[in-house]
């Protein structure tokens, strides 16, 4: 909070069920400059925390003990615009062990890089429809690697309040990055809405066949037996009138959903894009 006050940054307390993306999109429209902090959002969320509890030893008496549990604690969303990565956010947990989550979008990174290289492209909300130099685009997309993501986090941790104090860091406490979730999108753009509808309806029909485990093996190249842990399933979820096939394999998932290309199609007309 002190950091926000010092740098004249808006602090927003998110309402229950509020869509954070909508607020961020509105802030992005008013943002000027290459990079900086958009705003800080505060939300109370469930988190895995480490707590102390009092235990009793008959010989030595009471002593503290660390236990892992969950708690509803404040999380601070710092929404940023980076020169190389575009919009992103880092979510800090306010409770020990002060986990943080960095969320980046590879498409935004690609858009920034294409703009820097002067390549003409047509951007989508979450993707790129076309590019004048596809080879360059592929090269830039492949260029997003672990080193760049690590450098990005280090860069912003130097500018933002670090979760660990200088005394902690002097004592040798370090933070490292692990991958919590990775999403590999397959964006398919159709020139006519009817093509998107036909494609999606056929995809639904074909995906229904994936309920058989041997078909799931074809996708994941994994033998699924009765002893394989966790669930493997195919679901067809109807959200309103738009069906959406989901294929679950352990903790991972393939899902297809149609995204409207404009305001008209969002209201229920045939959609032209599928992601």
């Amino acid at each position, binding site marked *: 909070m002190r950091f926000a006050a010092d740098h004249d940054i808006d602090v927003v307390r998110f309402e229950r069920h509020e869509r954070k993306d909508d607020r961020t999109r509105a802030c992005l429209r008013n943002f000027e400059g290459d990079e900086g902090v958009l705003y800080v959002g505060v939300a109370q969320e469930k988190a895995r925390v480490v707590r102390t509890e009092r235990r009793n030893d008959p010989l030595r008496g009471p002593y503290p003990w660390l236990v892992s549990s969950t708690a509803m604690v404040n999380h601070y969303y710092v929404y940023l615009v980076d020169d190389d990565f575009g919009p992103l956010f880092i979510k800090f947990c306010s409770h020990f062990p002060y986990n943080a989550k960095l969320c980046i979008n590879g498409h935004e990174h690609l858009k920034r890089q294409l703009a820097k290289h002067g390549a003409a492209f047509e951007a989508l909300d979450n993707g790129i429809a076309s590019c004048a130099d596809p080879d360059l685009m592929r090269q830039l997309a492949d260029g997003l690697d672990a080193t760049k993501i690590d450098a990005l986090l280090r860069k912003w941790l130097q500018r933002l309040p670090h979760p660990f104090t200088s005394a902690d860091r002097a004592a040798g406490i370090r933070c490292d990055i*692990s991958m919590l979730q*990775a999403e*590999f999108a397959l964006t398919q753009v159709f020139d006519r809405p009817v093509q998107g509808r036909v494609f999606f309806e*056929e995809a639904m029909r074909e995906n229904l066949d994936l309920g058989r485990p041997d078909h799931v093996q074809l996708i994941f190249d994994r033998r699924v037996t009765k002893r394989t842990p966790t669930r493997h399933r195919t679901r067809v979820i109807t959200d309103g009138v738009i069906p959406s096939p989901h294929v679950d394999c352990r903790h991972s998932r393939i899902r297809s959903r149609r995204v409207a290309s404009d305001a008209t199609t969002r209201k229920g007309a045939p959609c032209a894009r599928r992601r």
Partner: protein
Amino acid sequence: MINDTCDFDVGRRLKNLEALKAIGLAANRRLLGVQRISHDCRIGIERFDDLHASRLVDGQRASSLRFGDPRVQSLFAALVAFRLLPQGFANRDLRERVAPLTGLSVDDCHRNRTTHDLRRLRLRGLVRRIPPHPSLPGHRQGHPNRLVLPPRLRPRHETNHGRRLRPAPPASLATRPSTRRLRQRSPSPLAGAKPRSLNATCP
């Protein structure tokens, strides 16, 4: 969406990002490949007609494999079962599978008939003869490139028949007046009936 990298025997550290990317992109490519097979309707009229018409191959006449012919449909449906057999299959293997699909017993389905089917498949390149092996009796037919039909053609030829033709109602039902017309023509028998109480229906 990968929520746990350990599902794919990959560690969670950021240094494993490249391995995870390879897995994610391979899954996408495979999914796209399947979708292209299923949704790319460009079978090509030439290829389709090629099956329908009889043709001459090296001076030998190969009779047609007509779409909708029950015998051809049964043949294709049975042939799929042999796709992955490295040692191929024999005349009798095919006969045992085709016979129940055509409603015949194996004895009624004569060997010459299957020989004729195998011949026209072989001349069109859908199956090929493999050299005789000492451990395998008789001639066995193997598939070129381990495929029975080109992947674009097989599902269309087979599923089109199964999905678009078979589910249609028989002609006798199709000529009946629709239920809507029936409803308009004659009032419901319950229209003028008085509601009966539950007690009246119970003894």
